[in-house]
């Protein structure tokens, strides 16, 4: 199973190669929140997709019929389809599937519901809620936009959801139930998410600085990422460029705490090890790790422990960067965007940096590719993601045979 296309809808803009170039250039897409007044929160930074105009991307889905997360998701799918060259080389509709992840789904529809309820009472609230809120509508909207009528599923695995979607798409292709899968994740910027992370004390006042000694937290963000997966045979037959092969995945659950990772990184390490085992690779053969790297003091410290558990002494030398330093934490989209990053790192031999890095943290003894992208051959890349609920998900990408 190979990645033949990707679409990114991020605080650094929407596109494919052009967004990859911006990530390699170390650009920062986070800034003051624009979609609501952040003054009452005491912090005001966020990562919003700038001037997102769904009509620029969508051809079939009527933007007004869907919530923002669906719009972001469908736009990313459209971009991915074009990048994969499938727009000109159509897939048999029943053989094309959609796997999607999210953390909070169409959270803005909850906000709308509440605003109606609080302003005008029960008689004015709730119309359209069923047509717009339920999160399974996100992959349905993607399918409507692309015209894929095959396997279709929402896997709301919070901030590991992109990896879960890739994993399910991988299994769906392997079982022969589809020829092409669009796998990804999406979340919209919402006051609910913002208030929540703020109350957890997790939002950084200015910047996201993963693995830096002075890191002060994460930056809530929105976005969507999609990778196109198909069999290598099919990709070769149609002459498509295959960025990387999906080699394997691992999933585990800490069963420890809803919002905090296991202190010894046991579950995260188990997910990494399972992914390596299915890939038939040793940890020493991994040349790049895309970190979960949210920039909160706890996440990064525990992630370093988990990586050391799996990689041993190599933990301090394998490049491990977090693009969340540039685009913030795009929630259910994050590991989907990072899946594309891993595939591109393998394909291009370039690794995006962790920006805003100033001072090493002895508790995170990692090579986080500080501030500057790096050119090295990447034969295998691991995408790590962790989530509320104690979810751990790792996916391994490697060079196409």
């Amino acid at each position: 199973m190979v990645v033949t296309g990707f679409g990114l809808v991020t605080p650094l803009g929407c596109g494919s190669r052009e967004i990859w170039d911006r990530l390699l250039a170390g650009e920062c897409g986070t800034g003051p929140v624009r979609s609501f007044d952040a003054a009452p929160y005491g912090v005001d930074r966020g990562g919003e997709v700038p001037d997102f105009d769904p009509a620029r991307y969508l051809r079939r889905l009527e933007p007004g019929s869907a919530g923002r997360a669906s719009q972001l998701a469908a736009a990313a799918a459209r971009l991915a389809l074009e990048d994969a060259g499938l727009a000109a080389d159509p897939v048999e509709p029943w053989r094309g599937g959609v796997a999607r992840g999210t953390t909070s789904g169409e959270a803005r529809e909850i906000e709308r519901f509440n605003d109606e309820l609080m302003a005008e009472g029960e008689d004015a609230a709730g119309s359209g809620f069923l047509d717009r809120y339920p999160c399974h509508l996100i992959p349905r909207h993607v399918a409507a936009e692309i015209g894929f009528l095959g396997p279709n599923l929402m896997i709301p695995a919070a901030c590991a959801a992109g990896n879960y979607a890739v994993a399910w798409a991988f299994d769906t292709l392997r079982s022969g139930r589809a020829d092409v899968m669009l796998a990804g994740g999406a979340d919209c910027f919402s006051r609910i998410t913002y208030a929540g992370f703020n109350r957890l004390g997790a939002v950084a006042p200015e910047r996201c600085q993963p693995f830096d000694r002075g890191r002060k937290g994460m930056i809530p963000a929105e976005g969507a990422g999609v990778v196109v997966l198909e069999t290598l045979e099919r990709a070769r037959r149609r002459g498509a460029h295959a960025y990387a092969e999906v080699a394997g995945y691992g999933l585990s659950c800490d069963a420890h705490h809803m919002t905090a990772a296991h202190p010894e990184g046991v579950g995260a390490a188990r997910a990494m090890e399972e992914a390596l085992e299915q890939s038939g690779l040793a940890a020493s053969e991994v040349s790049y790790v895309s970190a979960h790297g949210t920039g909160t003091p706890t996440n990064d410290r525990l992630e370093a422990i988990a990586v050391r558990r799996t990689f041993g002494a190599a933990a301090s030398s394998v490049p491990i960067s977090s693009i969340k330093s540039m685009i913030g934490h795009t929630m259910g989209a994050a590991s989907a965007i990072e899946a594309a990053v891993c595939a591109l790192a393998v394909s291009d031999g370039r690794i995006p940096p962790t920006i805003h890095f100033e001072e090493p943290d002895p508790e995170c003894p990692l090579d986080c590719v500080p501030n500057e992208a790096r050119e090295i051959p990447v034969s295998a890349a691991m995408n790590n993601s962790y989530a509320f609920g104690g979810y751990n998900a790792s996916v391994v990408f490697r060079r196409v045979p």
Partner: protein
Amino acid sequence: MSAAPRQVVVTGIGLLSPLGDSAQEVHDALCAGRLGLRDADAAGLGPAGLPIGHLADPDWRRYLGDGNLRPLDRSSQLAASAAALALADAGWAAGDPGRDGIGLVLGTMFGSVHTITQFDRRAVVDGPAYAKPMDFANTVINAAAGQTAIWHGLRGVNATVSAGSLSGLQALAFGADLVRAGRCDALLAGGVEELCAETLLAFRRAGLLCGAEPDADARPRPLESGRTGFALAEGAAFLVLEEEAAAARRGAVALAEIRGHGAGLDPADGRDEESAIEAVAAAVGEALRSAAIGGSDLDALALSANGAIRGDAAEARGLERALDGKLAQLPATTSKAALGEAPGAAGALQCALLLTALRCRRLPGVAGLQALDPTLPPLDVRGESRTIAGRLALVSGHGLDGQSAALVLEVGS
């Protein structure tokens, strides 16, 4: 290297529903023709005259013991309780070897809309500093799956799937595939849905419920001509799925085998009957093919018909198309006249109840059934329970928006 294919068996059931908290109890109640519905006003969730399937004051401690219940909202309480019952039914005790490697796949349509709206309302009305961090953890849609894993120490693969009212069936399909692929030797798969004022309001607004016009006799009438909609409900159900040899090694009884499953997408989202019928036929066709059986091999059928005007018709017609003349002779039932529609839990409840019916050799009737809609294809659905024989069963799920899924079960001999 080709090993024998891994078979997926069901070794336990745990459920909570308005008619009881065990498959046997609910089965007996259905066979006795009991209804599990109550008035929304009596539950404090909606107007008088609106029937709902609501669990009145469940005693969570009975299922969950003495732990700290505060972090669990209603969805999580329902899921964790059903999980406790399922683990016990399958003979998995705390501390058993391998128990902490058990996985969990939970289907839900909404997660907890109540928790999310309350969290947001508090932040808006009182200010963001008053929003409750503990509630925030439960705003994510996988919260109940995470909470259940924490409660029972389940460290295997954990996932939540959301597919509207097909979520429970899709969770079982997802879980069965994980076991078959060797990702896990044992996992809980099923679904949960809580009933809250917010979702009840949304369904009322959409005009999908029976009793929208206050009516003392309002109740769901699946497959009847006078049907006006369904009763929204809550519940939770898990099946314990295990790899056959692993289950045998620990001496567990295989209640049934998951033979196959299928899904069908309706591109018209239920707005066009032909398209919805095709989705049903596609799902059933794929389920039968993956089980390597034909429609004439089936011995019983659980429909998802709930009283929805269009959905019930599309499901019956799609089944007729897929089963090739067998539908009229296939003993069939639906539990939703009695239990209502609990979207995320429904498919898992159907599986648990049909499996129980086959094992008891008695199929419940549809409570209060007067006359089947004559415009539907002929169905062998009755008002009273009856004896049945055989081992192969089809569970059909037809979603509120035209989508379909189906699953084939075979009970042990």
